[in-house]
């Protein structure tokens, strides 16, 4: 099964958590800089900070996903746009291919997914990339669980 990447928006991320395109907020600027900051907290919790390195871009295969039941997890692009595959099957089931969506985050976007949302590691639209994340995940988390049924190929 193939899934085509869609630009993340407030509407298509609502069921997963909090998405903000920072440059759409009120801008503060002075000589040589422009900045934006949310009025609200990005997550209602403390968080560790992390960096992830993805060695390959799209197209790529999603054959397993993971979830965190006790923490939200915030993703923000590093050197360029990133693709994140998400799933939120009904009834707490393990996701299958039909549950998977792939969303594009541009630099200046962040997405903080809610507890229990399934996700795969971020990838670039093409080639290797890195991205940042913030969460409280611990060694107790479940790790990657194989999708039920066939895998998903994510394409741009």
């Amino acid at each position, binding site marked *: 099964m193939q899934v085509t990447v869609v630009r993340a928006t407030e509407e298509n991320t609502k069921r997963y958590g909090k998405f*903000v395109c*920072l*440059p759409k907020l009120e801008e503060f600027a*002075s000589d*040589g*800089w*422009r*900045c*934006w*900051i*949310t*009025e*609200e*907290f*990005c*997550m*209602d*919790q*403390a*968080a*560790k*900070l*992390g*960096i*992830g*390195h*993805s*060695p390959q871009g799209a197209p790529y295969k999603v054959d*397993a996903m*993971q979830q965190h039941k006790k923490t939200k997890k*915030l993703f*923000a*692009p*590093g*050197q*360029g746009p990133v693709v994140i595959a998400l799933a939120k099957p009904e009834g707490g089931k393990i996701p299958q291919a039909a549950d998977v969506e792939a969303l594009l985050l541009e*630099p*200046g976007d*962040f997405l903080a997914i809610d507890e229990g949302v399934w996700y*795969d*590691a971020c990838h670039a639209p093409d080639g290797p990339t*890195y991205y*940042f*994340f*913030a*969460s*409280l*995940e611990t*060694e107790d*988390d*479940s*790790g*990657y669980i194989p999708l039920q049924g066939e895998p998903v190929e994510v394409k741009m």
Partner: protein
Amino acid sequence: MIKQRPTPITEENFAPFGNYWNLCTQPKVRASKYEEYLTTDEPVYQPMRFGMTMCENGNRFAVRSMERHNTTEEVLFAADKPIVLSVAGSDPAGDPLAEDVRSFLLKPGDAVRMNKGIWHDACHAAKGEAFYYFMAHGTGQGDEIVWHDVQGPMVEVEL
């Protein structure tokens, strides 16, 4: 005029101003698909707002003014390219002093949490344009977000 070059940031040289993490040398996340590294402690120890700054720079820049927040720490990390962070440990109740200004080079993967009351300029790109993320519990009000002129000789940072 005080001329200075940015110093590559380390845990030791940034200690007077806050905490530093090299995210790329943190413990590897066990259950990751590729290589992911995560701090063991919590740079974001309380709920925070999330922001981004886009900045630019030529071969040098002047540190003319700074702000400080007495009610919130500020977490900051380079995103796409190296940036220069200028800070001063001057009295937060007064003004930032030129003689106290220190400039640090942060590469993508370098993250800091500045203590409350630490004077800081907006970061500059080490070359061309860059963007970085920052997080703070409060956005600041009143004097918290007023930029104060740096007192004393002009501070110029050469790259």
